[in-house]
């Protein structure tokens, strides 16, 4: 169009763009948590891991000049926090949910403390790949500027799905999650399996954080996560511990987050609070539709402290 506006098409485009831009941290955290929970442990601390990941990625990217080094640093930080969670939980009579909450506060607090001097500087960001080259509409091109981490996340979901079903490692994690006695009878250390699963989960959550600070919204500040980590943990339950469903749920949450601003921009201005709450309404609706008093959640690992 002559004035560069695309009218009502903004809304579906923004939801698509939002699904791509906003979903990546949800995707990484929920896939990470999926691995951890399948091994029979809940790590609620991933909100803290996400924020720590965002902070350390930004810091390392700023100091080293390489955003990819930042991503790696975020992953390592996340794995260390995961190891801490798993380490504490392997002590007798420790509740993993309580430890998770403690680590959530610890992670965010530490990130805010260490991240103080990082709010002002601008760090090098991750590059985007232009998938909108075929279109001459600038809005479409902007929506399709995709970061490679999103693609990795999307590829990771089916890989995990396959790995859980067919690989030895997947079987071990599931065994530890369904029956620790069985895993022990097979001669495996349940604690070691869970330590590894929690570390991998932390690694992925940390990488999710690096996406926040290094790609979108693309800078470090203390309001950056605004609860996305904890939403992603809830999303795993919502996705029934299935990596593929995690992918779809993350995309839906990303798109829903874009809905409120997009509707306002085309003039649907009444009830924007409602549209801003869209992701939460969506969760609530699906939870209500799928819950049943007669059975436990389908797909829930039996060793999980919420189902045990």
């Amino acid at each position, binding site marked *: 169009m002559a004035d560069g506006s695309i009218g009502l098409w903004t809304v579906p485009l923004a939801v698509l763009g939002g699904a791509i831009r906003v979903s990546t941290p949800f995707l990484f955290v929920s896939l990470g948590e999926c691995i951890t929970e399948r091994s029979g442990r809940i790590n609620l601390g991933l909100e803290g891991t996400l924020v720590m990941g965002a902070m350390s990625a930004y810091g390392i990217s700023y100091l080293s000049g390489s955003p990819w080094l930042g991503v790696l640093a975020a992953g390592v930080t996340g794995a260390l926090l995961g190891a801490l969670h798993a380490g504490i939980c392997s002590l007798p009579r420790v509740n993993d949910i309580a430890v998770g909450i403690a680590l959530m506060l610890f992670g965010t607090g530490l990130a805010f403390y260490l991240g103080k001097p990082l709010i002002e500087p601008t760090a090098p960001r991750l590059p985007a790949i232009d998938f909108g080259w075929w279109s001459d509409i600038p809005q479409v091109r902007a929506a399709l500027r995709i970061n490679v981490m999103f693609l990795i996340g999307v590829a990771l979901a089916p890989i995990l799905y396959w790995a859980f079903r067919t690989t030895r490692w997947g079987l071990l994690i599931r065994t530890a999650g369904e029956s620790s006695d069985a895993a022990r009878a097979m001669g495996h250390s349940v604690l070691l399996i869970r330590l590894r699963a929690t570390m991998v989960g932390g690694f992925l959550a940390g990488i999710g954080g690096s996406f926040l600070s290094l790609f979108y*919204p693309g800078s470090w500040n203390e309001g950056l996560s605004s609860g996305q980590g904890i939403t992603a943990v809830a999303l795993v339950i919502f996705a029934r511990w299935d990596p593929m469903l995690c992918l779809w749920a993350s995309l839906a949450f990303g798109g829903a*987050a874009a809905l409120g601003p997009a509707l306002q921009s085309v003039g649907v201005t009444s009830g924007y609070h409602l549209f801003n709450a869209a992701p939460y309404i969506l969760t609530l609706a699906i939870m209500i539709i799928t819950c049943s008093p007669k059975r436990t959640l389908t797909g829930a690992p039996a060793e999980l402290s919420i189902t045990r």
Partner: protein
Amino acid sequence: MDFGRISRRHLLQGGAALSLGAAAGLRPAFAAETTIGFIYVGSRDDYGYNQAHAQGAAALKKIPGLKVVEEEKVPETDAVEKTIESMINLDGATLLFPTSFGYYNPHMIKMANKYPKLRFEHCGGLWSDKDPKNAGSYFGYIDEAQYISGIVAGLTSKSSKLGFVAAKPIPQVLRNINAFTLGAKSVNPKATTQVIFTGDWSMPVKEAEATNSLIDQGVDVLTCHVDGPKTMVENAARRGAMVCGYHTNQSALAPKAYLTGAEWNWEALYPKFVKMIAAGEGIPNFYRGGLKEEIVKTSPYGEAVSAEARKAADEAKAKFLSADGFAIFKGGLVDNKGKTVIAAGTDRGQKDPELEKMDYLVEGVLGATS
């Protein structure tokens, strides 16, 4: 212990030293340490509201004899009362600046009643005769600076579509949106401002989504009223749009895209307050002002601002600085639903309390307050 009397004596001594020092050509020094407490709702280096106050506090730190204590990220709850208590009882603060809107009533009022000899200065509140005499509120008419930003934006935009990322539809925010729009329309009658409310003061992901949606709609100059404008500025610049800043100068974040911005000038006001106390006259309980009173300022023009826009903005600035001042909200003002909100013939000057209750968006703003 009588902090009030001690503080006044200290401050008077300080005042004497100040004038002596000035006479002798020396740096002014307070005879004994006076402690001033600053409380921020967020992080003090957020490129925004809190950083602006922290810059004001930093200006006070440079004055010898003044000790500044600061606490950041204090929520607008009982927590601020505890912070005030500890600043008074542990640090010996005698002058306090709780800088966030929600600190005022009941928290700061309660503390002012409890410590009647100490001085409390709140940013943004509306002090009235019913409130304690040792409390005060100050604020700046930053909509004057937004009006100037609007002029620059209206003359820079190619599509005549401007965008505004706002937190909540409260009077101070609406005033900024309206002043920005009226400034733009004064030089470009076709200009419209599309506003998006994110719902809260710090929502980086929503702010980034709002910025992208506005640009998708053809908006090419954006500004905002959220706590930290960094997200909007960086994301808009990445998409090739121009920006006007808010709270502080964000030109370092996007040197090419930054046009100008509406900034607080607390580093000019706070030393003035201290001088008033030192001179023994005290701070007026209700203190307001705009560009003329140096409570707000505009950022230096960026390279993308044309000579025409600079000229128009400078002319408007001169009007604000003139003895008569300049009323942004003039009679015959119609809101974006077609209702006349200010009758023809009445000019609402900056100090008009009616403007503090603003609940409308003027004609030319695309958006709604609810």
